[in-house]
């Protein structure tokens, strides 16, 4: 059945978009446009961890597919590729098999920084955010070391141990603040607050909160509230982690 294939194709594109961290309205609009380009009248509904696509065949038979979206980060490269492909498919409308192959090829052979470069990103972000929050040069260096610790935990250990997001963030924050305390005690760093906040910027959900507000403005209230709750929960995990290591430091 061609309609089944079309539905699967649209859902897969939406799934990839969600997985790359796209906004809800972008996901809904992309899937809608893609299926409309193939002459269908789809209904698309997405919330942060679920995507539902439904359509009626010309015989009047309704078919629906739902996909759950697992926990994911942000992958702008994947997002740009999905967006390009969606525009191309809407413009050219190639046969379904060909389009399906293109969509399946999205997550393969895409450019991806190696884990070492990601680790370097954590170090740079932490070090310069510490400088940004009025830290001195030495504070930047210590924040870089803390960022390295958090990066190693988030990229290598935490993910492999299969911890859930809350505890992963909690332990990451505890590592960051403990390292900051130790480095100031030793005499490398001077301004504990700048080091801690600079390092925690890589964990802190400020961006999640701003994105949540943008979802609400765009009219996706459920997603917005969902993300706001997530941001507050992450912030709670971070402060618990910091409190734990402050208690250890005392």
């Amino acid at each position: 059945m061609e309609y089944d294939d079309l539905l699967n194709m649209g859902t897969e594109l939406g799934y990839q978009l969600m997985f790359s961290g796209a906004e809800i309205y972008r996901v809904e609009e992309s899937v809608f446009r893609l299926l409309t380009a193939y002459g269908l009248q789809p209904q698309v509904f997405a919330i942060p961890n679920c995507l539902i696509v439904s359509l009626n065949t010309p015989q009047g038979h309704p078919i629906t597919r739902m996909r759950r979206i697992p926990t994911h980060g942000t992958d702008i490269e994947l997002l740009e590729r999905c967006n390009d492909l969606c525009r191309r498919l809407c413009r050219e409308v190639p046969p379904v098999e060909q389009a399906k192959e293109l969509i399946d090829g999205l997550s393969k052979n895409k450019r991806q920084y190696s884990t070492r470069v990601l680790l370097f990103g954590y170090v740079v972000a932490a070090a310069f955010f510490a400088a940004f929050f009025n830290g001195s040069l030495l504070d930047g260096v210590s924040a870089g070391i803390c960022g390295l610790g958090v990066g190693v935990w988030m990229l290598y250990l935490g993910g492999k141990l299969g911890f859930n997001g809350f505890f992963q963030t909690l332990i990451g924050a505890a590592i960051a603040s403990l390292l900051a305390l130790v480095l100031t005690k030793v005499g490398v760093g001077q301004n504990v607050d700048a080091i801690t906040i600079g390092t925690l910027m890589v964990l802190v959900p400020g961006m999640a909160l701003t994105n949540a507000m943008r979802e609400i403005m765009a009219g996706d209230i459920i997603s917005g509230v969902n993300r706001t709750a997530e941001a507050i929960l992450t912030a709670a995990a971070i402060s618990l982690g910091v409190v734990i290591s402050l208690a250890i430091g005392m």
Partner: protein
Amino acid sequence: MELIQELFLPCLWGMIACIGFGLVFNIQGAGILICGLGGALGWFIYLVAQRLLGGDILPAFLAAVGIAIYSEVMARIRRCPVTGYLQVALLPLVPGAGIYNAMRYCVAGETNQFISTLLHTFGMAASLAVGAMLASTVLRTLLPRLSREKKKH
């Protein structure tokens, strides 16, 4: 000299920090520099607006408008979705420290300070979101018309 230290250095640090975040978000090629510049631009607007107007909600709003215009234009030029540029460039402004401090007060049991810091953080996030959405919406209606008129001439 003082001006350089207070205005330009923070922008430079913010820019490099944004580039570091760009790596974490897997932004490839020239996009990562565009994000960094956007971050620096936003923080510059914020600092200047803060000197002229005071407070921090209104400067954050203006900075978000500036960043959104910059990101939309860059997204048009590079034919990419605006999401990545906007998210990374907003990072220096994003109220990470606010939400962290709020939860620290909450854990310490200082309810009054917790509520006021939390509300202020929500205010910052909302003003950033409103600024970014406002500029994006206006540009999305304006830009296609402008480019169409250019083609006519």
